[in-house]
C-alpha cells in the first residue's frame, strides 16, 4: 500500500463531538422530506430517506451536525439516527473525494482481474484503500458484490456503474471522471432523493434532469 497524507480510515471513527447546531436543510428539502414521510404510516420510517436528503444537503457527507438536523427533522434522538447512519455503508460518515471509486472485488470480479485494477489504481493515484488523493478528487474503496457480475469487473462511482473494466481501460475512465464537471460528492444522494419522489420522472424534479441518469456501460444492455 502506498502512503498518503489524508488517512480517513473507514473502520476507525473518532467519537462524534457534540454537534454544532446547523440548519442546512433548504425549504425544498423539508418539503421533500414531508412528501416522502407521507409514504409511511410513521414519520420515523423516513429515516433512511431523510439521511439521503441530509447527505445531499451537506455536500456528500454526514457530519454530526447533519445527523443532528436529520434527527430534529424526524423527531428522533441523535443516537437513533447516528445508529442508522453508521450501519449502512453508503452513508458517508467521513468525507470522501469528489469521485468515490468503489471497485467490486467480490467473487466474479475477483476472478476477472478486480485486484489487478485495485492495485493499478493504488499505484497510479498514489493512495491505498480507504484513502483520498490530496487534491480531493478520488477516494478508493473495495466494494462487496455490486450485483452486476456478468460485466465484471464493476466499479461504482457516485450514482453510476461502470462495467467490463480492465487494467487497460481503467485509467481512461479515471481521466474522464477527472474532466467531468457535473460530478459532486452529493450526486449519489441527489439522484436517490429524486427517485424517492413521485412524479420526478415526469417533472424532472430535484436539481437533475432525467437525462442525467444515463444507462451504465456494459455488454448486457
Amino acid at each position, binding site marked *: 500500500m502506498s502512503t498518503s497524507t489524508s488517512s480517513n480510515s473507514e473502520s476507525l471513527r473518532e467519537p462524534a463531538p457534540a454537534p454544532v447546531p446547523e440548519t442546512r436543510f433548504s425549504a425544498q428539502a423539508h418539503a421533500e422530506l414531508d412528501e416522502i414521510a407521507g*409514504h*409511511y*404510516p*410513521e414519520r420515523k*420510517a*423516513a*429515516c*433512511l*430517506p431523510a*439521511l*439521503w436528503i441530509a447527505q445531499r444537503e451537506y455536500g456528500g457527507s454526514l457530519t454530526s451536525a447533519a445527523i443532528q438536523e436529520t434527527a430534529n427533522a*424526524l423527531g428522533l434522538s441523535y443516537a437513533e439516527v447516528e*445508529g*442508522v447512519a453508521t*450501519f*449502512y*455503508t*453508503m*452513508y458517508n460518515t467521513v468525507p470522501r473525494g469528489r469521485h468515490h471509486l468503489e471497485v467490486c472485488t*467480490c*467473487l*466474479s470480479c*475477483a*476472478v*476477472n*482481474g*478486480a*485486484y*489487478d485494477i485495485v*492495485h493499478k489504481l493504488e499505484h497510479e493515484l498514489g493512495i491505498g484503500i480507504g484513502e483520498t488523493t490530496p487534491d480531493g478528487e478520488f477516494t478508493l474503496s473495495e466494494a*462487496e*458484490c*455490486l*450485483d*452486476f*457480475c*456478468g460485466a*465484471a469487473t464493476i466499479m461504482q462511482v457516485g*450514482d*453510476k*456503474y461502470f462495467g467490463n473494466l480492465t487494467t487497460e481501460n481503467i485509467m481512461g475512465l479515471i481521466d474522464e471522471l477527472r474532466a467531468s464537471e457535473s460530478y459532486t460528492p452529493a450526486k*449519489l444522494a441527489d*439522484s*436517490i432523493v*429524486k*427517485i*424517492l419522489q*413521485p*412524479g*420526478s*420522472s*415526469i417533472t424532472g424534479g430535484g436539481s437533475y434532469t*432525467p437525462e442525467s*441518469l*444515463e*444507462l*451504465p456501460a456494459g*455488454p*448486457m*444492455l
Partner: protein
Amino acid sequence: MAILNLLFATRNVPGIENIDVAEAHGIYKGVRKAVTMERQAVIDEIKASGLRGRGGAGFPTWIKWNGLPKNYTAPHYVICNADEGEPGTYKDRELMLKQAHTLVEGMIIAGYATYSKVGYIYIRGEYVEPAWQVRKAIDQAYKAGYLGKNILGVDGFDFDLHIHMGAGSYECGEESALMSSLMGERGNPRLKFPHAPLPTVEGVWKSPTLINNVETYCAAGWIIANGSENYAKLGTERSKGTKIISVSGHIRRPANYEVEMGTPLLDLITEAGGVIGGGLKAVVPGGSSVQIVPADRLGPINLDYESCGANGTLLGSGGFMVFNDRTDIVLLMKRTSEFYAHESCGKCTPCREGTRWLFKILDRITSGGGRDGDIELLLNVCSNIDGRSYCGLGDAAAWPIVGAIKAFRPEFEYWIKYKKSPVGASALPPSPEVVNPLLLQAAAAHG
C-alpha cells in the same frame, strides 16, 4: 437448450420502458384480467401454477398470498425485495432496468389479491439506474390509471406504490431485516416464526405483510396474464416454470439466461459459450451462499430445486458462477468468508464472531501461516455458526466453506503444508512463489 423467455419476452424491445410500448406488448394485461376475477381466484391461479419464491428459499408463493386476512379492515402491505445482494446474482437488476412495468404489474396484482392498499419496492441503494426505471414505470402507471384510487374503475381497489432505497447492506435482503430497514431502523433481523408471527400476520408496523422477490412478482403477473396451466406445464414436478440464471465468472458469454426449470446445468454452460481461460473446475450454481460443486459432479445436476438439493447444493437465487481450473478454491473461500464477515449485522454472536474467525483462519492459511488442524478448526467454527445463528446469513456463511472443504480438501491441505497455491503447482505453468495471495488468477480470466 431450454432458453425460454417468459419474463424476458420483451427485454430487447426498443422503448419497452414506456408504458404505451409495454401495453402494446401485453404488459398490464394481467392486471386487467385480475380485476375481473375474484381475489381468491387470483390466489388459486398462483397456487395452480406451482410458483415458488425466486429470492432464494423457494417458498410456495401462494401460501404467502393466501396468508393475509381477506378483508380491508386493517392496513396490509405488499413489499418487493429488490435488495439483490447475493454475490453472483444480477437478474433483478435487469428485470428492473428493462421490465420495470412487468414488476409494477405483478405488485398491483398482489395488492389486489391480498387486500393491500400500499406497496413498497425496497431497492438496494447502489441500484440507481434500475431504480430510476422503476420510478419511471410507477409514474407512468399512475398516469395510466393502474395505480391510485379505484384502479381501472374498480370501486374500492386502491393501490399506491412507493420506492424505498437501501443504503448499502446485504443483510437487508433478509426479509425481517428488510422490514426493520423499511421502518427506518438499522438492518437487524427480527424474531421469526415460530417464535413470532409470520409476516403475513404481523409484518411491518405490526400489519399483515407480503414479501416477495422481484422475479416472483414478475412471474405472478405472467401467470395471471397467460394462465397457470401454461406456466405449470413447464419445468419439473416441484419446480415449475422458468428461472432466471445470472451467469458470471470464467464464461464466454456472461448474461442472464431464463431457462426452463429442469434444464441440465452443463447445457447452460454450453449455451453461455463455455468456460474461458482453462478447463472447467467448479460451479457455484445459486449465489455465494450455496455449496460449490466440482466439475466431475455437475453432470447429473439439473437447474431446479429438487435436483440441486439432491446433489449437495442449492438453486438459491440463481447466481451461477463458473470457475476454471486456474482458480484457487481456498482463495475463493477466503474471499467468500470476507464477504460474510463484512456483511454480518452483528446482532448474534455465532455469526458476528464466527464469520470473522473463518476469514481470519482462511487469511492466515493463504498468507502461508497454515497449521495442522486448521481444516478441523474451520469445520468446527462452521458447525458453531450453522443452525445457531439468528438469521440465514450465518448459515449462508458456513455452507460454502463446508462445501468447499468436502469437495476440495486436498487444496486446503496443500496450502497448509506447502504454504502456497496448489493451482500454480499443478495445472499451470509453474509459479512457485505466490507473489500476492489476493490475486485470484486474474490473468487467466481472458483466455
